[in-house]
């Protein structure tokens, strides 16, 4: 009797899951499908949407501004992600293989930039980079690195590099923590065996650590790429929403935002959103596969 009773309780599973799925249907799925519908219309935010078929999609396909934004986004991601990965692996290796005093404090402080409001960071850096009298110019002049103030946000490559460095600064600690977690999972006796065979620490890092870290390397790379493709806040605040100089800081999300909310072309913005989603989905499948494998 008792056993049967507890089996009958399984329908409570649905009751407990209901708030989550109902909320997702209302605030998640419905807006996503609504965006899809709007992407097939011309909609200015005030008058009724008018169906235009796939016109928005074929327009994105040949839109040089969209590709320019995509290129900017990828360039800024690369400038930040390459040093981000190098620092993350280097630091994780240092903390994992050498007993460092105050390890927890280093780890925590490296992680801080990741948590702080990106908008505030960007506003702060914008003040620092202020031409001609921001903190960066003051320090560079004081130490004699430059003779006259420079305006980093006035030149496309310098501006993109600035954003890349900011992204590095914001995220290397986060990646480091994930890589460290991966290193903890490598059995110690593998290294013991390596030592007996006379391998140097350099050899052991490349022959044991890196191959075993492959899944986590893939994970942090894909996560970083997906995050990079969505980048928006830093560029928006640094440039007051314009993406200057010469549009070099316009990212895909900023282009979508401006198309919709600045120029009132919501249908086209919806199509841009779906293009971005298609690109991101390709990389997400990789992560999903990883996750699903663990479930077995």
């Amino acid at each position, binding site marked *: 009797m008792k056993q049967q009773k507890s089996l009958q309780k399984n329908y409570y599973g649905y009751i407990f899951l209901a708030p989550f799925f109902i909320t997702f249907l209302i605030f998640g799925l419905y807006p996503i499908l609504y965006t899809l519908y709007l992407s097939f219309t011309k909609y200015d935010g005030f008058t009724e949407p008018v169906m235009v078929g796939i016109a928005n999609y074929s327009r994105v396909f040949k839109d040089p501004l969209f590709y320019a934004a995509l290129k900017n986004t990828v360039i800024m991601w690369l400038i930040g992600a390459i040093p981000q990965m190098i620092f993350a692996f280097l630091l994780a290796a240092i903390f994992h293989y050498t007993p460092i005093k105050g390890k927890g404090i280093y780890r925590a402080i490296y992680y801080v930039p990741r948590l702080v409001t990106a908008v*505030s960071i960007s506003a702060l850096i914008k003040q*620092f980079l202020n031409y001609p009298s921001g903190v960066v110019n003051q320090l560079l002049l004081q130490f004699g690195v430059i003779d006259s103030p420079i305006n980093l946000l006035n030149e496309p490559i310098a501006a993109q590099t600035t954003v890349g460095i900011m992204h590095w600064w914001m995220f290397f600690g986060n990646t480091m923590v994930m890589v460290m977690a991966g290193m903890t999972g490598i059995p110690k006796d593998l290294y013991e065996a390596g030592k007996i065979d006379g391998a140097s620490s350099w050899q052991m890092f490349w022959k044991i650590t890196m191959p075993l870290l492959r899944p986590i390397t893939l994970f942090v790379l894909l996560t970083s790429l997906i995050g990079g493709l969505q980048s928006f806040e830093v560029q928006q605040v640094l440039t007051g*929403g314009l993406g200057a100089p010469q549009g070099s800081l316009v990212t895909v999300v900023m282009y979508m935002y401006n198309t919709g909310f600045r120029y009132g072309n919501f249908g086209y913005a919806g199509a841009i959103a779906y293009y971005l989603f298609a690109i991101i989905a390709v990389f997400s499948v990789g992560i999903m596969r990883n996750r699903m494998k663990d479930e077995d």
Partner: protein
Amino acid sequence: MQKFKIKPAHVIMYIFLVVLLIICFFPFYAMIINATRTTGQILSGFSLIPGSAIARNIKELATKVDIGRAFGNSLLIAVGATLLSSYFSALTAYAFVVYNMKFKNALFAIVLVIMMIPPQLSIIGFYKFMKEISLLNSYLPLILPSIATASAVFFIRQYAKSALPSSLIEAARIDGASEFTIFNRMGLPLMSPAIFTMAITSFIASWNNYLTPLILMSEQKKFTLPLIIRVLSSDVQDPSVGAMYLAIAVSIIPILIVFFIFSRYIIDGVSAGGVKE
């Protein structure tokens, strides 16, 4: 011999670590210092010593924006979102662990897919939808969606798989406790370490949220801190740099405090997100 070989490498390593430490913390330090100096002092040169103009900067900031109100708005939204996300993520995770209903695996696969959906995908439709049901300039669209926080469900479920012994739940059922009572009295406490980690994460995420309030809010008195910072920052004519630094500090310092109290939990959460058992 060995010792002499290792030492210089160690010195270089420590220098490297400390330099990085400074790079990570210096911007916040400079921010706090400049928040206490007058605009004139800030523009005339950099200093490592705090000034005495904080009261003046507060007054100057008050003439432009109501930062106290924005702080309150951000806090209200973040607390509301955190409470909803904590309770309902725990409830959802609990259901996936404790019950064996049909389609359980399919439903969980949906949670995994939801985790992967970029938030930008929905904003166009979300904006129009909220406009139609008159929820622009309301806090509800910023708080209620937290009921469905897929990443928190994923994290708490991982933890709950080993933290919820089915024998204990069975025993409570035999004692005649209702399913909701068992969840509230036994499930929540047993899962509390994971819930707590996710609560901190969710508070910070909500505090930092930018895109959603940006598209929904147009009345300045309802603005959250990031929106106020954006308004101040985009005003290029504004000459009061000291007040600007102060406003940025107000938005950043609470996060720094939360982090330094709870850093262990936050970093554990990040680690668990990356590794699989």
